[in-house]
């Protein structure tokens, strides 16, 4: 099997797996317990919090563990409704956010929150000028993703952070695709809230994190015990948290080397694909992108069919569309870039990770070429 869908999830690293295992077996103590077994779990969580803090330039007290990126995104946004319940706050976001942000915003609109959805250019970039223009006296929060999950475009986070800091508006970024893949320093970027998910950087599924700048308030997500500063009660997922810290530390340690290797894989993939299918277009090609993501649109070939034919050859890639009941639902991201519905449903995303090789990239190109020929032969 060739796994090239690392933007969806990644294989857990051996180191993260080995480190989390004891906490599922012999070290099963509750981190809140006062005896030694509990203390070991507590110490493991403290260590993981430190690993995360070092990785993103934060203080350990600013890190809150969650169940994943969606929970953290939803939590930050919903918190503003509770904090400004009587003020009808205004939130700015982009049209290409993950559904955990977009759907939360839709729900907030039903409760009286005003939301502005910024457009993007044809490379999927949000304009800082648009952010500035959208700011109102009631604007309390701007939520712009660090990097897009479908096309990999990296947003001008530093410029947006600077602008919002000057205006005294809080800045949240969904960095689920970026953390562990590109260097991030939350203080340098003037980010107030940042969310990430462990399984996107070779950790385990079911664990994520929220960075909350020191001094900022957030309404509790779960009431109960004092876990996670009393903001998210409940016995901690110690094994998952250990894997998160370990995987992130491991990813950050060789971030430059992996980035260079993945950039090369993407470069070769695009070059070879253009040789065999000259009419393909690469979405977001003109933007600064995450290493490893290639989103291509084929002339007149269903992305879903392409994905299934590659699956039959043991290759895992993703369509940019969701097939519901036999009807292709075009990706909101690709539509926001200006693609037609036909083009948006004729696209696939190849996303390489740290374990992919040049040989695998070559096999993917060959398989895409073969699948494309079979599909278009039937038109």
């Amino acid at each position: 099997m060739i796994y090239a869908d690392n933007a969806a999830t990644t294989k857990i690293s051996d180191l993260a797996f080995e480190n989390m295992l004891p906490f599922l077996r012999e070290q099963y103590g509750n981190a809140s317990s006062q005896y030694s077994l509990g203390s070991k779990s507590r110490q493991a969580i403290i260590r993981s919090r430190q690993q995360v803090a070092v990785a993103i330039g934060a203080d350990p007290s600013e890190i809150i563990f969650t169940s994943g990126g969606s929970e953290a995104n939803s939590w930050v946004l919903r918190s503003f409704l509770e904090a400004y319940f009587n003020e009808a706050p205004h939130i700015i976001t982009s049209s290409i956010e993950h559904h955990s942000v977009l759907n939360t915003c839709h729900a907030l609109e039903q409760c009286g929150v005003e939301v502005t959805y910024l457009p993007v250019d044809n490379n999927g970039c949000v304009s800082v000028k648009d952010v500035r223009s959208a700011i109102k006296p009631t604007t309390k929060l701007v939520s712009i993703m660090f990097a897009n999950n479908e096309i990999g475009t990296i947003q001008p986070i530093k410029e947006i952070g600077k602008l919002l800091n000057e205006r005294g508006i809080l800045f949240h970024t969904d960095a689920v695709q970026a953390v562990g893949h590109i260097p991030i320093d939350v203080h340098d970027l003037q980010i107030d809230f940042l969310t990430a998910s462990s399984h996107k950087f070779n950790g385990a599924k079911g664990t994520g994190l929220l960075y909350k700048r020191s001094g900022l308030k957030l309404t509790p997500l779960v009431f109960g015990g004092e876990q996670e500063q009393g903001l998210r009660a409940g016995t901690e997922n110690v094994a998952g948290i250990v894997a998160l810290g370990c995987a992130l530390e491991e990813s950050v340690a060789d971030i430059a080397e992996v980035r260079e290797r993945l950039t090369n894989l993407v470069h070769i993939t695009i070059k070879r694909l253009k040789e065999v299918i000259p009419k393909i277009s690469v979405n977001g090609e003109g933007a600064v992108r995450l290493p490893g993501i290639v989103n291509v649109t084929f002339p007149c070939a269903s992305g879903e069919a392409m994905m299934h034919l590659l699956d039959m050859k043991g290759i895992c890639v993703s369509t940019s569309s969701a097939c519901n009941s036999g009807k292709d639902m075009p990706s909101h991201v690709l539509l926001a870039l200006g693609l037609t519905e036909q083009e948006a449903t004729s696209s696939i995303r190849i996303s390489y990770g740290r374990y992919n090789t040049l040989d695998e990239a070559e096999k993917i190109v060959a398989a895409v070429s073969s699948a494309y020929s079979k599909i278009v032969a039937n038109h």
Partner: protein
Amino acid sequence: MYLYSVCDQTKMDKRCETLDKKSCYVCGKENLNKNEIGLTKKLLDKNSKYFYCLDCLAEYLEVDTEFLLVKVEEFKEQGCILF
């Protein structure tokens, strides 16, 4: 008031059924079943001009028929109405 009789409706249904009948592009097998038509649409294109019976599609895609039958069940489980 009905615009057409039950008899007319039956004729129309029959006509639609005939129009929807597909045969295999390779071996000519007639009256491809819903799964064969669904597989062609799902794996090649929903607007595919040509349709394949299970055996010919398996040969075209270089997989075995059992594999395609497993895929049919997977697609059904996912709620795909092509099957």
